[in-house]
């Protein structure tokens, strides 16, 4: 058994992807099968594994995925960002308000989403990197600020982005593109393609560039990197800026999926994005990050959310499950570190 496992671990493909990631892919398959069986039992023989379900699950996976990719950088530097969910909402609120009420062109509004996210990231990053404040409490504070700013800007009103059929509706095609065929409508998951492209860019940034190398190394030992003559503050702040910008980018896909944004909300997505990250093998202690793992982790979160709703359970079950999964992932991370020491 042990030999077979070692042999499997030494396969070339497994080595490239990483054993942990292979296990995670297995988890996706298991969860899907579980829902398939549950669906047959609970929903009178309905199928769970259909294309419609897949695209519906992906809708949720896109923005969680972008949030998780961003926070991967922050966690790699040994920090944490609890403001990403509300920052995503605030970006969508302000940009959407500008689009609807001030007649901003759509393309400018989309750009504004990313910009607002980046601004929040820059502020948080500056506090953490230059004033050495703990990221935990700094990001908590910024989360409140983000919520407040968004709701002040819209005078505590919901903001609805245009529908697909309306003049400014094409942003929704970034999430899903509908094609009319002889047999009916087919959804092309554009968001999945964009997510994968961004993930590849993130992986290159993290593993092949100086910025990524410094971020990971300073996450493992900040002082040693500083004493090697590296301005660690700059790179630490960059991680937060990337994180914020991606949270802003995520908001485009959130409204692409749900259209309407409420003020003073968004905190639950923090936990799901961080869960995706930690599940994927990024260590909360810093110094270790996997972009591929984060992407797979986001898919797991998305499938769970879809499955639970499809089974007719309330969303509250999902909170419980995500909570348990984060616990499980942190336990696995901590135990593996203890073994290595």
């Amino acid at each position, binding site marked *: 058994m042990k030999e077979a496992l070692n042999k499997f671990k030494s396969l070339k493909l497994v080595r490239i992807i990483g054993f942990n990631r292979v296990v995670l892919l297995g988890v996706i398959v298991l969860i899907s099968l579980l829902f398939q069986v549950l669906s047959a039992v609970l929903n009178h023989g309905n199928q769970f594994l259909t294309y419609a379900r897949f695209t519906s699950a992906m809708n949720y996976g896109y923005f969680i995925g972008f949030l998780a990719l961003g926070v991967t950088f922050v966690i790699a530097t040994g920090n944490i960002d609890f403001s990403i969910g509300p920052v995503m909402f605030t970006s969508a609120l302000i940009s959407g308000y500008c689009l609807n009420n001030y007649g901003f062109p759509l393309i400018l509004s989309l750009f504004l989403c990313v910009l607002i996210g980046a601004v929040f990231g820059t502020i948080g990053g500056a506090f953490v990197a230059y004033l050495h404040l703990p990221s935990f409490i700094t990001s908590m504070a910024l989360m409140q600020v983000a919520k407040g700013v968004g709701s002040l800007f819209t005078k505590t009103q919901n903001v609805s982005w245009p529908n697909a059929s309306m003049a400014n509706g094409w942003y929704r095609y970034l999430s899903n593109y509908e094609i009319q065929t002889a047999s009916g409508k087919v959804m092309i998951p554009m968001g999945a393609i964009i997510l994968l492209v961004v993930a590849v860019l993130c992986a290159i940034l993290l593993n092949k560039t100086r910025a990524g190398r410094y971020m990971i190394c300073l996450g493992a*030992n900040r002082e040693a*990197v500083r004493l090697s003559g590296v301005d660690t503050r700059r790179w630490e702040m960059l991680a937060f800026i990337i994180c914020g910008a991606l949270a802003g980018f995520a908001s485009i896909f959130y409204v692409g999926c749900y259209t309407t944004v409420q003020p003073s909300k968004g905190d639950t997505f923090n936990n799901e994005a961080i869960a995706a990250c930690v599940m994927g093998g990024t260590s909360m202690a810093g110094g*270790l990050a996997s972009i591929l793992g984060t992407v797979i982790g986001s898919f797991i979160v998305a499938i769970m959310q879809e499955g639970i709703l499809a089974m007719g359970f309330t969303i509250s079950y999902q909170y419980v499950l995500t909570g348990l999964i984060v616990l499980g992932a942190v336990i696995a991370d901590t135990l593996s570190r203890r073994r290595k020491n």
Partner: protein
Amino acid sequence: MGEIILTMKGIDKSFPGVHALDRVDFEVRKGEVHALMGENGAGKSTLMKVLTGIYSKDAGTIIYEGKEVDFANPREAQQAGVVIVHQELNMMGHLTVAQNIFIGREPRKGFVIDDGAMNKEARKLFVQLGIEIDPKETMSNLTVAKQQMCEIAKAISHEAKVIIFDEPTAALTDTEIEQLFAIIRDLRSRDYGIVYISHRMDEIKLITDRVSVMRDGQYIGTLITEDCTKEDIINMMVGRVIYEEPKTHSHCPPDAPVVLKVEHLNAGKMVQDVSFELRQGEILGFAGLVGAGRTETARALFGADPKQSGDIYIDGNKVDITSPKDAVEKGISYLSEDRKRYGIVLKKSIVENSTLATLKEYTSGLFINKPEEEKVTTQYVETLQTKTPSIHQLVINLSGGNQQKVVIAKWLVNDSRIMIFDEPTRGIDVGAKQEIYELMNQLAREGKSIIMISSDMTEILRMSDRILVMCEGKKTGELDIAEATQEKIMNLATRDIDMQEGKK
């Protein structure tokens, strides 16, 4: 020496890429102090961690008090009576002495902790050990030596039968060491089995009955301490003889150009008005007692800590150094005494560590040039003879000496001209020490200028061309190696203290 209380036989343990213990045998008798010696990375700590259940063994047997045991964790070992007094003390500074000793098993009166009984018990322990510590004192107010004695008291209160001391004297003064030895001798006379791990050869001769030596994860042999010489033990440890001789004259020509000039440097209490010059190809020793301000001077010079005032000249030109980045750009490097915290990124590979200070030069366009990076790392692994299976090995898996070589490689890749070595051989075994010395001499010959901070007098006298002595944050003197003696250095190193005490 009494009967055998503990036998370890054929202990085997492997980590990924490292065969840490290769069928090692070891035994302890009642009423003996048994030294366990070997270079860093020889496997001493691993063996003790296997014994106390921190690691599980791959093969072999442990027989304790006549029964085969396999402790699952340190707690089980402790309950059975096998206790380690760690090098780094595991005490809670804000609790009192008695609270620390009885943590987790406080005597109670109903639901409340019975402080009176606890303090009384602790006092009894200290009387037994013949030491004076107030059980009600807060732990962090004690000296390291006293804290260590509390650990010993804690071990005894657990009814330990085997006590393992892991480099217990590393942070103690001479008088404190004497006190510790008195306690150890007392424990020996009361039939405790004691394992003593240390690098200090003189201590081994003083305190131990038998010496077991390990090398490269293997058991080499056991000697009766009385019947062997220092050289015998070193021979077994490294498999060759090493001679330590002081330098007799400076190897640096008196007309060599001044590379670095520091004038009136001030940084906090620990660096007051320090001035000195450093010549090309010179090794300038920084001598003094622990806490004399030598490390602080180096850190202020390097820009790691802020300085209040002072001018720094490189090649005669005044430079402004406010961060390590500035210093590195000016060709200065700093090799910290605390490698693991300030020198290397343990969880990263040799390659990643080697180019950490120079990554910009190994970046073409947007991307890191990995082949170039690997090429230069391989080159320095070869020239420095770093022992590693691969350049992609994580630094955490290397021994202390080899980790130090990775730090040196980092600064050589950067082509630093002025290198500050802070305690370059601390925690490094005899064999690797020799290599580091040779390397420093070679660097000086090649025209690098070296500042060497060291608390080891033999090291100072053996390596330096010139010696600067500090005391209480001030420079108290400068000696050429030809005129330097241990006595003269000690005089300067304690001068200020004497003067202050004279005033009182």
